[in-house]
């Protein structure tokens, strides 16, 4: 396929179509809406299902229903809409049916604004919904990656009968870049053997998330946890830049990681031994890889478009081996490369590194000074 100038949202929609999505249910919300609008054009053309739901609550439950029949299905939204899906997400997880969710994050909390942000990391990677389950979460940093990860999301969701989330920040959804779309895949013909699809000549099937006897429910939880351990083993993804000799390791995902790249290049030009580690699978998180890096590095610097949601996971990986510094912008502010460059210079100087557990406090004071 030729390189074309594509908007992230449109690219993810078309990628899903080519990955064989058979039903899309969603509700408009900026900065995700172009994805829904593209589905509105393309799905009917292809004789597939497009339906604008009355709400995100309805959308996730429509997806839940369609997924129970064994069809590839998805929804997309942005932060407040995703928050409304939490109950449904927990039901889908408890029922072990595969679905794909695209979350194009915006500034919050609350109605907030529609600018790019990364404030859904916690609710997608850790918190979202009641009970113990973990979705696969993939974070693209370019339109091309958004395409590739959307296709991957469908394959992983099916492989593990799990929820796969493409967690893009608003800039990925809104920006245009040259990118290449995959070939159109045929939609899956045979339904999986668990599908509730009203077939004749077989025992009736049930898909449900209720297990009244706690011991039965516990067995489900154990199955989910074991499957998750498989996922942790097989599906960790990340990108590295200039890490071989790096004493300073920048960690950032999505747009934050991409902005950091510019800063890293600039710093490298000035001979600062800095490299970039960009997690692509936020869940499963590359704990082992970061732990290994921590052995060689002098300092870590986590860069996010939130108040440090991934930061805790990096610290979990590092377990105190190196100081883990933090720089974040919140509420929809996208950092400029020069800010991160300045941070690199700061952590390059041991005197201005805060390994004293007041990392967040110090960041907040710096930020406050800078913008207050």
């Amino acid at each position, binding site marked *: 396929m030729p*390189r074309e*100038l594509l908007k992230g949202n449109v690219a993810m929609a078309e990628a899903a179509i080519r990955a064989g999505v058979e039903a899309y249910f969603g509700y408009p919300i900026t900065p995700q809406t172009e994805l829904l609008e593209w589905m509105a054009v393309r799905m009917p053309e292809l004789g597939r299902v497009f339906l604008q739901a009355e709400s995100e609550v309805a959308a996730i439950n429509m997806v839940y229903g369609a997924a129970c029949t064994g069809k590839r299905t998805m929804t997309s939204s942005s932060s407040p809409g995703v928050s409304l899906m939490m109950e449904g997400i927990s039901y889908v997880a408890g029922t072990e049916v595969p679905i794909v969710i695209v979350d194009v994050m915006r500034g919050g909390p609350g109605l907030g604004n529609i600018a790019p942000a990364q404030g859904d990391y916690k609710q997608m990677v850790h918190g979202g919904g009641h009970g113990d389950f973990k979705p696969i979460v993939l974070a693209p940093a370019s339109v091309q990656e958004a395409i590739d990860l959307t296709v991957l999301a469908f394959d992983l969701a099916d492989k593990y009968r799990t929820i796969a989330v493409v967690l893009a920040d608003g*800039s990925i959804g809104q920006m245009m*870049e*040259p990118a290449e779309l995959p070939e159109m895949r045929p939609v899956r013909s045979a339904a999986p053997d668990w599908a509730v699809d009203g077939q004749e000549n077989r025992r009736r099937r049930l898909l449900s998330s209720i297990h009244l006897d706690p011991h039965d429910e516990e067995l489900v939880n154990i199955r989910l946890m074991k499957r998750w351990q498989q996922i942790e083993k097989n599906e960790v993804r990340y990108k590295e830049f200039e890490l071989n000799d790096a004493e300073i390791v920048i960690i950032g995902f999505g747009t934050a990681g991409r*902005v950091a790249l*510019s800063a890293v290049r600039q710093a490298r030009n000035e001979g600062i031994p800095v490299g970039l580690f960009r997690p692509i699978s936020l869940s499963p998180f590359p704990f082992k890889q970061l732990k290994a890096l921590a052995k060689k590095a002098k300092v870590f610097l986590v860069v996010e478009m939130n108040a440090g949601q991934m930061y805790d996971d990096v610290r979990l990986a590092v377990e105190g081996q190196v100081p883990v510094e933090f720089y974040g912008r919140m509420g929809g502010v*996208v950092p400029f*490369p020069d800010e991160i460059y300045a941070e690199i210079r700061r952590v390059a100087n041991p005197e201005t590194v805060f390994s004293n557990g007041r990392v967040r406090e110090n960041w907040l004071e710096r930020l406050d000074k800078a913008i207050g």
Partner: protein
Amino acid sequence: MQTEIVISGFGGQGVLFAGQILAYAAIEADKEVTWFPSYGPEMRGGTANCTVIISDQEIGSPNVRRPEAVIIMNLPSLAKYENLVRSGGTLIVNSSLINREVQREDIRVVKIKANEVAESLGDKRLTNMVLLGALLESLPVLEMETIKKALEKHLPSRKRNLLQANKDALDKGAELAEVRDFMLLV
């Protein structure tokens, strides 16, 4: 080599489309490019801007603090970008909506009464192309021909009838920029 251009004005002034035409043209010219909008919720009346980065290598950050050139389509945008444009950079100013002078002297400034020019060309919505033409004249990052090819390919069908007018607007803008430019020199 990397060039960053910002286009800024009210929503509805064609800010985003002008940037997209630049991006399409960049692809025509086999360059790396990113188009990054500041998207506002208001359909009209709000401020909108986009950053277009054209480069020979993989592009990192899709936005920059100090762009090389800025097209200023309204007063709030001047307030915001006058001090941000890089020293030695270019400011294309829509003097139809901006009565005040630009203070900085370390940059090149091109002022055009783009609304009037556009209306003289028959359609107020051509304002953005007039200013884009002026930009290309002052900062030849892409060939005018490439831009026009991009226009031909990507002008939405419902505006097809305005294709020629858009091209004329580009030329007119370039022409005026030239003149202004000359005047600046003397």
